[in-house]
Each structure stands twice: as structure tokens, then as C-alpha cells.
């Protein structure tokens, strides 16, 4: 091997710590982008394949009870490929012998073996429960601490309990897909319904279409036909849902989130490239003498350029060696995590060629680009300068003939110190050293600040986004102000329920609400979307709508409604005063839009009309199925206790209670779902912060290395270990503090950007941004800790230097 290549090998091998730092700098960015690109590919591919593999229903009809004949009629409808009927009802369950009740959605099958729509996947034990046996969906295991073979207690409407053993665990990727708020499922056979005192009737139909499984308009048309048909047969359809076969209901949300992660991944690549640039620049600085000697003995610019290029490529190759397999594993891990959170399956571990290509391209190109400038300037250096030992490269102290010039920043800092001193404010000189040292290597400072600031801004923005999402959920919660929601299986008179609930200690108010569902039609009478109309009393105190336009409902409104913003998806220019055509109970009606409000509705358009009118429509004047109660305390735990108490209270008195639920339950579930998303973002933010901290460590290490002589001087004139370490750590803290100030500024556009992307992905509407001091406070603490941690190692190295090394420099 030629001597120069031997040198390259030694450069790589001899200083292992430096090699590791460079390799790690490259690896961070390559790993991040590899993980995200791989996960993106795996998820976007597997999500729809896995979803479609389970024969998801294109139309779901939620109805009052129907029998096998009605199912036959559905199956025979034109355009229907297949249809299955089930009975879905919720029950409270607990592990026998324990106290904690959990609500499960019970799904009764007529024939598990004939399951062709919304297929169940066997995971454990038996997948076909016999009479008085139950099979759980895997998500239920997160809510009920139960194993196959254990016995569960099921609470009946009269408060008595029945027991059934858990015989198996299945996965149902289709049924709860797209519904963040769905309860976990349990499966029984229809033969168990009598035991559970449930009517042996179906209340859901799951339908696949013959053709056009990916044409949502076609699916809606079939759905509307089916609804008409059922209602004409006297089977009231409460709600319909439409889904495409190859489009997971959450695909767009997941893709949007992955898009954000991808953007953050690219950012990390940028940040790591600045880290690489810094490290390589310092490496070249350390090698100036070598370059001088090489040139002295005849080495040409091009040869030096080639040597260092090969060195950089070797670093890149080493980084790729580590990150390609790790990135592949990480991508699969992330995909697996997301898939388990969203209940779909990935199709096994594999190398994603696109992710691999991206990793290799980033791994080779980024170090090359980042290192090009230092390598070119290093190879161009004159022998004289290379050998002169001018290694400090102090940008604030011009070299050569310009030596008598001082930069404006130094002049400003000195002037500032003098002005303060003249007012009696003196800074200790060691701190002045730290302060002024900060600004000596400006290029390096800018790169370090860039990484730390970006990390900080994203970190703060993630907290703001979290606050924004929570605030929005909170404001959405104003549509559900009730402390306890009490639903019955039959309507009861308002006055009767009011008299009853007022006997329950802690209940201070009650409202009866009604509900009606229909379809929103276009001008041609084609079904556009489901519409669910809530009917609270016009003077309800349990709803505080976020009106975008128009007004809220009045008691005397007839065929007037307030629409959710989702309507903009179908009528972009809709205004209060416009008419919309609805199909309710098979009849087409024109309703006047009186207002438009903000809401999250992933299952169609939501609307509000006064109870006074809806109750007339439903022929349920002064009666209701659903009651909203106000308690004197609004804590979740109090609400839970009251819900349980009310449930028991009404069951004992013979009322057909369907469910009594804490008002915050739905909201908390939504918040938890959002928090999962926020955790993703936070992981990325922490990753950027780690890159920032690494950048700072590298910078401080290089600074210490270059200021060995100065540190030795301070030692010579009395600086002990503590003083030397303080000097280095203070510089780190100054950089951290500057980055914090910059991060505050940058966090504002980042917050807007992230909030908008996330809210559009999750809520399909832009939402008002909320700023929280929490992110700022935590980041301030964190950046200080990171700064200290990042500076400790270089500071310790600095404190270990002896002045003999100073003299060795001379």
C-alpha cells in the first residue's frame, strides 16, 4: 500500500474517539431518515393490504333489531357481494373476583365459520366461541387483565351478573378501524344472547360491494339503497358508515403523520450534516501540520484532496455499515409499533429498497457535501501556514497583515463590558473569557446554534402543538359538558328521569337529548355523506358550540340546523341561510343552515337542531333515550363514581339502562389517542435535541482542543480544576442560552406549521394555535442540562491538561 493510503488508514484507526464521533454524526442522520423512510414505505404498503386482506365491509348499517330474513334481503340487493349480520351491544365486564368494571362492545355472530366480511384473525386459543364462551379482541387485553382460560363476569341490565370463560383471542383489524373512540371488542355466538338477556336479533349489517370497492361514491349509493330498503321494511337505520376496500380509514392521517416525521427526519439529516461539517473541519485543522509536511515533501493539492476524500468516504462507509441494518430494524420496529397502535398487521420484516437507497445516498452525499469545503480549503493551505502551527483559526483574530484589526463583535463586547464596568457592574474575568470565547469560532457557533435551536424550536413547538390539540379537544369537549351520559334502551319521560336523578346525591341538573340520522344529498339527490343530528334543548347549558358562522339553534327553529365544518368538504361555499337537502327516514327534506361550527367528525357531517323540533320528528315529545346529567363535582373520578352509582340506581328500579358513562371518558380517550401522536413528535424532537447536544459536545471538544494553550495559561496563573471546568461549561451554557432565545423565536412558525399539518391530518380543519409555557420551561431546563452535560467531558479534558502541554506548543 502506498504511504499516503497507509496514512489514511492510520487517521481512521489511531484516533478511535474522533472516528467514532464522525461516524456517529453521520449515522444519526442516516439512521433517522432510514427508519422513517422504511416505516413510511412499510406502513403505506402494508396498511391497505392488511386492511383489505380482512375483507372489510364497505357499508356498515347500524339499525334496530332485524332477523335473518332482512339479512337475506340485504344479501340479495343489487350490487351487494356479501353481507353479514351481527348484534353489537355493550356490557360491563370484570375478571371474576375483581372490582374494576370495563365496558366492552360485545359482538354476537350467527356463524363464526361462515365469517366472510370483517374477518377475524386467530391469535390464541379457540376463535369460535361455543355457547356461553367469549373470545376477546387483542386490544381488550390492554383494558381487562385477563388470560385465556380466565372467567369474566358480565353485568346484565338488572345488575345481576353472568360468567363466561375467555376461550381465545382474535384480531379484528376492520371493525374498529378509523374509530379512535371505539371500545374494545368481545365476541360471542348468537346462542349466548339469551344467557346475556339480549334479544336474538341483529343490529348491524356489514356489507361488501360487488364492484367499485374503491369508489366511495358508488359505495354510498349502495349504502343509501340498502338503507331505503331496510327502512321500507320497517327496520330503522340509525347510522351508516362507508369505507373503501383498499383504503384504511386512518390512512390519510397516518400518512400525514409520517409526512411530518419524514420532514423531521430530513431536518435531522441537515442537523447531522452541520455536525459532520464541524467535526471534519476540526479534523482538517488538526491535520494542518500533516498537510504541510505532505506538501513539503512534494504532495500535490489533488493528492491531498483525494486522501481526505477517501477518509471521509471511509467514515461514511463505516456509518452505513452500522446504520443500514439498524435503520432497517428501526423502520420495522416503528412500523410494528404504529400498526399495533392502529390495529393492523405488517407483512413481516424486510429490507425496503427505497429506504436503503435513501440511506446510502444520504450516507455518502451528506458527509461529502459537508466535508467538501474543509477538505478543499485544507488541501489549498500553504506550506508556511500549515507548518506555522496556526491551528487556532480564530476568526475573531485576523491573521497575518490584518492582525491589528478587531472584529465589530469583539469591539462591541469590550465596549459593553466597559460601559457596565463604568456603572459599577463588573463581570468576573473567567466569565468574560467564556462569553467572548463563544463568539470566536463563528462558523462553528452558527452550525452549533443551528442544531440546538432547531432541536429546541421543534421541542417547544411539539409542546405547543400538544397544548393546541388538547385545547381543541377541550373546546370540542364543550359539546359534551355533561358529567354523566345516561342512555336507555327505551325512551323515558323527561320529568320521570329528572325526579329519579335528583334523588341521587350529587346530581344537580339534567337534560334530555334526542338524535336523528340521515344522509346529506347533493343537488342531484345523490348521497354525499351521513349526517347525524343531535337535538339538545335550545337553551342547553351542556353545550358551548364553537361557531364559525351564523347562529346557534333556537327553540322555535323548524327544519333548521347548525352544521359542522365537515360540510365544507361537500359545499365549500355554504353560508348560513343556504338550504341543504337531507334524507331522513327515506324522505328528502330541505333544511336551512343557520350556523356553521367547528367539530371533529371523522364519520360524516354532524349537525345540531333543537330538541323541541327533533322530539316532534321522532314522536318522542317530552321523552328521550339519552339524558345528560350535571353533577356538583366535575372530576373524572367523581364522574366515574356517579356513572356507576346511577347505573346501579336505575337498574335496581327496573329501568333499561344501556350505558351510564362519565362525560370525560370520551374526551380522555381522544386525548390519549392524540398523546400517542404527540409522543411520536416528541421522540423526533428529542432526537433533534440529542443531535444538537452532540453538536455542542463536538464543538466544545474542538474548542478545548484548539484552546489547549490558553487553558494551560489559565492553569499557570492560578486556575484550579473548578475554574477551568467552569470556563468551558459556562461557554456551553452561553451557547445553550443563545440557542434558547433563538428557539423561542423559531418555535412560533414551527408551532403554526406543525399545528396546521397535524390538525388538518387529524381534525381535517385548521385550529387556533395555543402557546404553553411548559415547552419553554422544560426546554430551558433541558437545554441547560444538555449544555452542561455536553460540556462536561470537554471540560474534564481541559482540566486534565497540564501546562507542560502549553510549553510543548511553543
Amino acid at each position, binding site marked *: 500500500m502506498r504511504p499516503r493510503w497507509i496514512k489514511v488508514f492510520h487517521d481512521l484507526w489511531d484516533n478511535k474517539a474522533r472516528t467514532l464521533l464522525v461516524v456517529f454524526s453521520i449515522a444519526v442522520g442516516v439512521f433517522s431518515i432510514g427508519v422513517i423512510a422504511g416505516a413510511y414505505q412499510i406502513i403505506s404498503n402494508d396498511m391497505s393490504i392488511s386492511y383489505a386482506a380482512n375483507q372489510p365491509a364497505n357499508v356498515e348499517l347500524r339499525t334496530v333489531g332485524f332477523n335473518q330474513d332482512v339479512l337475506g334481503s340485504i344479501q340479495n340487493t343489487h350490487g351487494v357481494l356479501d353481507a353479514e349480520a351481527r348484534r353489537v351491544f355493550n356490557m360491563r365486564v370484570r375478571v371474576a373476583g375483581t372490582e374494576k368494571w370495563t365496558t366492552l362492545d360485545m359482538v354476537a355472530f350467527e356463524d363464526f365459520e361462515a365469517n366472510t366480511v370483517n374477518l377475524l384473525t386467530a391469535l390464541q386459543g379457540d376463535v369460535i366461541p361455543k355457547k356461553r364462551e367469549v373470545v376477546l379482541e387483542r386490544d381488550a387485553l390492554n383494558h381487562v387483565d385477563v388470560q385465556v382460560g380466565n372467567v369474566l363476569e358480565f353485568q346484565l341490565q338488572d345488575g345481576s351478573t353472568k360468567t363466561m370463560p375467555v376461550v381465545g383471542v382474535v384480531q379484528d383489524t376492520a371493525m374498529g378501524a378509523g374509530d379512535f373512540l371505539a371500545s374494545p371488542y368481545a365476541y360471542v355466538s348468537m346462542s349466548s344472547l339469551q344467557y346475556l338477556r339480549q334479544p336474538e336479533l341483529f343490529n348491524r349489517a356489514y356489507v361488501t360491494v360487488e364492484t367499485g370497492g374503491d369508489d366511495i361514491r358508488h359505495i354510498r349509493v349502495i349504502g343509501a339503497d340498502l338503507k331505503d330498503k331496510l327502512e321500507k321494511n320497517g327496520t330503522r337505520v340509525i347510522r351508516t358508515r362507508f369505507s373503501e376496500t383498499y383504503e384504511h380509514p386512518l390512512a390519510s392521517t397516518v400518512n400525514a403523520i409520517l409526512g411530518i416525521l419524514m420532514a423531521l427526519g430530513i431536518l435531522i439529516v441537515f442537523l447531522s450534516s452541520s455536525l459532520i461539517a464541524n467535526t471534519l473541519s476540526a479534523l482538517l485543522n488538526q491535520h494542518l501540520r500533516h498537510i504541510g509536511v505532505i506538501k513539503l515533501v512534494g504532495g500535490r493539492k489533488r493528492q491531498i484532496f483525494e486522501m481526505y476524500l477517501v477518509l471521509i468516504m471511509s467514515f461514511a462507509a463505516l456509518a452505513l455499515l452500522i446504520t443500514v441494518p439498524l435503520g432497517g430494524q428501526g423502520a420495522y420496529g416503528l412500523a410494528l409499533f404504529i400498526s399495533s397502535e392502529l390495529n393492523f398487521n405488517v407483512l413481516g420484516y424486510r429490507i425496503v429498497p427505497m429506504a436503503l437507497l435513501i440511506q446510502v445516498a444520504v450516507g455518502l452525499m451528506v458527509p461529502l457535501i459537508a466535508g467538501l469545503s474543509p477538505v478543499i480549503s485544507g488541501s489549498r493551505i500553504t506550506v508556511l501556514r500549515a507548518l506555522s502551527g496556526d491551528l487556532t483559526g*480564530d476568526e*475573531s*483574530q485576523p491573521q497575518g497583515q490584518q*492582525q*491589528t484589526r*478587531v472584529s465589530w463583535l*469583539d469591539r462591541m463586547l*469590550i465596549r459593553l*463590558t*466597559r460601559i457596565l*464596568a463604568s456603572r*459599577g457592574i*463588573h463581570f*468576573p*474575568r*473567567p466569565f*468574560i*473569557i467564556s462569553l*467572548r*470565547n463563544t463568539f*470566536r469560532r463563528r462558523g462553528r457557533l452558527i452550525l452549533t446554534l443551528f442544531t440546538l435551536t432547531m432541536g429546541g424550536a421543534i421541542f417547544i413547538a411539539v409542546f405547543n402543538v400538544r397544548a393546541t390539540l388538547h385545547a381543541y379537544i377541550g373546546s370540542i369537549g364543550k359539546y359534551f359538558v355533561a358529567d354523566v351520559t345516561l342512555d336507555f334502551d327505551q325512551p323515558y319521560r323527561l320529568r320521570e328521569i329528572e325526579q329519579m336523578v335528583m334523588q341521587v346525591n350529587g346530581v344537580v341538573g339534567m337534560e334530555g337529548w334526542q338524535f336523528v340520522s340521515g344522509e346529506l344529498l347533493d343537488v342531484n339527490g345523490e348521497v354525499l355523506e351521513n349526517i347525524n343530528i343531535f337535538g339538545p334543548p335550545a337553551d342547553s347549558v351542556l353545550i358551548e358550540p364553537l361557531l364559525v358562522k351564523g347562529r346557534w339553534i333556537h327553540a322555535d327553529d323548524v327544519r333548521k340546523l347548525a352544521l359542522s365544518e365537515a360540510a365544507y368538504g361537500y359545499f365549500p361555499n355554504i353560508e348560513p341561510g343556504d338550504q341543504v337537502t337531507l334524507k331522513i327516514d327515506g324522505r328528502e327534506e330541505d333544511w336551512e343552515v343557520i350556523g356553521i361550527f367547528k367539530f371533529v367528525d371523522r364519520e360524516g357531517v354532524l349537525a345540531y337542531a333543537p330538541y323541541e323540533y327533533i322530539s316532534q320528528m321522532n314522536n318522542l315529545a317530552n321523552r328521550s333515550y339519552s339524558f345528560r346529567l350535571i353533577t356538583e363535582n366535575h372530576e373524572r373520578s367523581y364522574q366515574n363514581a356517579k356513572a356507576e352509582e346511577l347505573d346501579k340506581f336505575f337498574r335496581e328500579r327496573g329501568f333499561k339502562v344501556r350505558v351510564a358513562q362519565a362525560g370525560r371518558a370520551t374526551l380522555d380517550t381522544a386525548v390519549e389517542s392524540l398523546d400517542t401522536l404527540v409522543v411520536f413528535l416528541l421522540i423526533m424532537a428529542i432526537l433533534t435535541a440529542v443531535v444538537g447536544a452532540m453538536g455542542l459536545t463536538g464543538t466544545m471538544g474542538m474548542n478545548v482542543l484548539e484552546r489547549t*494553550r*490558553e487553558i494551560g*495559561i*489559565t*492553569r*499557570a*496563573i*492560578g*486556575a*484550579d*480544576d*473548578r*475554574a477551568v471546568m467552569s470556563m468551558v461549561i459556562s461557554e456551553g451554557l452561553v451557547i445553550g442560552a443563545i440557542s434558547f432565545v433563538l428557539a423561542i423565536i423559531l418555535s412560533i412558525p414551527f408551532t403554526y406549521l406543525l399545528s396546521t399539518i397535524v390538525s388538518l391530518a387529524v381534525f381535517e380543519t385548521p385550529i387556533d394555535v395555543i402557546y404553553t409555557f411548559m415547552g419553554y420551561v422544560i426546554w430551558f431546563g433541558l437545554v441547560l442540562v444538555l449544555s452542561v452535560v455536553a460540556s462536561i467531558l470537554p471540560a474534564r479534558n481541559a*482540566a486534565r491538561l*497540564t*501546562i*507542560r502541554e*502549553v*510549553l510543548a506548543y*511553543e
Partner: protein
Amino acid sequence: MKPPRSNPSTARGARPTIDSARKIPPESDAMIQLHDVVKTFSNAAGEFTVLKGLDLKIKRGEFVSIVGKSGSGKSTLLNMVTGIDHPSDGQVVVNDVDIYTNFTESQRSKWRGRNLGIVFQFFQLLPMLTLLENVMLPMDYVDMYDFNKRPERAMDLLKLVGLEKFANKLPVLVSTGQQQLAAIARAMACDPPLLVADEPTGNLDTRSADTIIQLFETFVSQGKTIVLVTHDPSITSRTHRNIIISDGELIDETISRALPLLRHRHMLEFTKLVEERVYRPHETIIPRDQHVDYFFMIRKGGVEVILQGKKKDHIVSRLGENEFFGEMELLRGGKSIANVRAGGQPVEVLALPRADFIRVMNESPITAEALGKIVQKRLEEHQIADYRR
């Protein structure tokens, strides 16, 4: 100008002071004492000893120069004194403190800040601080003087070195001479009793160098001890003592003063070969008309050179410390023409065997020539001719 130390109860370094913790009983007037100091370095090629058992004592108030060729060990010696490096063996006592026993590097730094000032060849001012701030820095590190008084003291020191107008300038904006003056002011910031300088004028023009030596002389006159490494003969001539180090060993100062033109390696050889002799008052050292077998250098006391006249003996010259005798006979051959005896006090001399003296003179024609001139001069001064020829 005695520095009022900051209040011990409030000062950061208010713990039991490292100085008192390792204080050893003061030995008379010694500022620096080296006892059998050995320094060995190791590298891939093996071990090599840079300092080979040095013994040295420098008194308080002395102005001492250390000279030696590159690689002779002078910087290592200086590092031993300043606590910058660690001896492999032996003891170093500075200002009555054994600085290498139970002292951490960190504690030694703090001790150094309080007890000695260091001046470097390349000034080593911190480039990001103004001259004033550079001078204040040691006070901050060792917490001397009240915080608000430090600017005033630093300014006084800058005035002392004539740099008050440049106090708020960065080092890069003043001349190299001014930088060294500022470095001296910084070294004196904590009013240390000892100033150590490593070639302080090596990088300066003659005028600046002279200013600095004058400053040193002022400090010495105020009772400071100054030890400096230099190559400049104009400086060594102005110091009280000139310590020569060669190949890691100290040259006997009597030899170096008696034979300043001799190569250092020969001086070192002589140092090893000479035997010390003490003669009582008026005791004969070289009798007349005898073969002379030694070359003598006077360490302490004086000798009388007595010639036999036609009528009576008479003293032709009196030689004092660092002078030599016996060279005429050794260089010119023959028997002694004069009787050399101790003076009125006991005399300590270093006696070098003839063979070694002759061999070295053959190897060092410059010294031989210089000695020849001295012989000639002595003969002429005494107006005596060798009547035996």
C-alpha cells in the same frame, strides 16, 4: 506594595490553605530548594532522564538566570520550580512549601497563582481579554483583593509597566514588547514573592528587552526573587547568579564563572572531575619549583601568589572567588614559578587533575587561547619574566 488578601472568612479559598497544609520548616533564606530532583520521560524509544539528580538552592531576593542549550533540561528544571511538571524523584520546596507532596494539579495551580508569577517567551496573554482584564484574571482565580478593588490594582500595575493608555486594548492591538510588559504586570498581579520567566526577552527587540530587565531589577530591589531562563548574555551579566544546566545536570557555578568560554559539556565534565579542597589560612597550595598537578578554581575565600624575589618574597597578586590558578604551569609546562597559598581566611578550591585539564584544553582551543591570554596578561601585569628560561 503588600497585597491585602481578601477576608479569609469570605474568600472562596478560605479552607485551610494549601500553603499552610504543606508548609515545611523554613530553611534560612531559601526561596527555592531542589533536592536530588530526577525527571525521567518515557516514550516508544524507551526512557530517558532529563534531570539527573539536581540539587539547587536559590535564596530570597536573588536574581538568577538559568542557561543551557536546547534539550539541556532548563525548561524541565523551570517546570519543576513552577509546579508545572512533576519530578520522578526528589523534592522541590518553593517558598517553604513542598509542592509535590500531597498536592493535586488543581491545588498546585491555585498555589501557583498566589505564590509565583510566570512570564512566557510568547507572552501568552489571553487574546479575548483586554490588557486590563488579563491582569485582573489571576486575582479572580485565586480570589485575592476585593472584587471591586481588582480593576484599580490592575491599572496600577499597568501604570508601573507604562501601559495605562492601552489598558482597554486587546493584546493583538499592541506591540510585542507591550504584550510582554502586560504579561509581567499579570505575573505580578497577586504580588507573588517569586517571578519565573522563560526567555522573557527572547522575542523582543533590544530596547524592549532592556525595559523588561530594568523592571526585573526593580522588582528584585523590592525583595522579589526572580528566576529566568535566557540565552542572552547581556541579561546573564545583570543577574546575581547564572546557573548552567547541561545534559540534565547543573554545572558547578565556580567552574562556569571561572571558565565561561568553556563548552557546557566540558564544564559538566569538570564539575564531575574536580575535587573540593579546603586550606587553612596561609597554608601553601602550590609550592614554588614544584610540578603542578592540578588546575585550581577558587570557590570561597582568596589566595595569595608569592614570588621569590632576589632579596625577599613578595605577594604579586591576590586571587578571589571564581578565579583560577595553576594554569601557567599546566599550559606552559615546567615547575611552578610562584608559591600559592591561602589568604588570611580558610579557602575552598576546586582542584582539577592535570591530565583532564590538558585534555579538555586540547579539545577546546578557544578556552585554551583565552587562558593563554590571561596567563600573558598576568605575566605582564606582574612584570615578571620567567627567569628560568
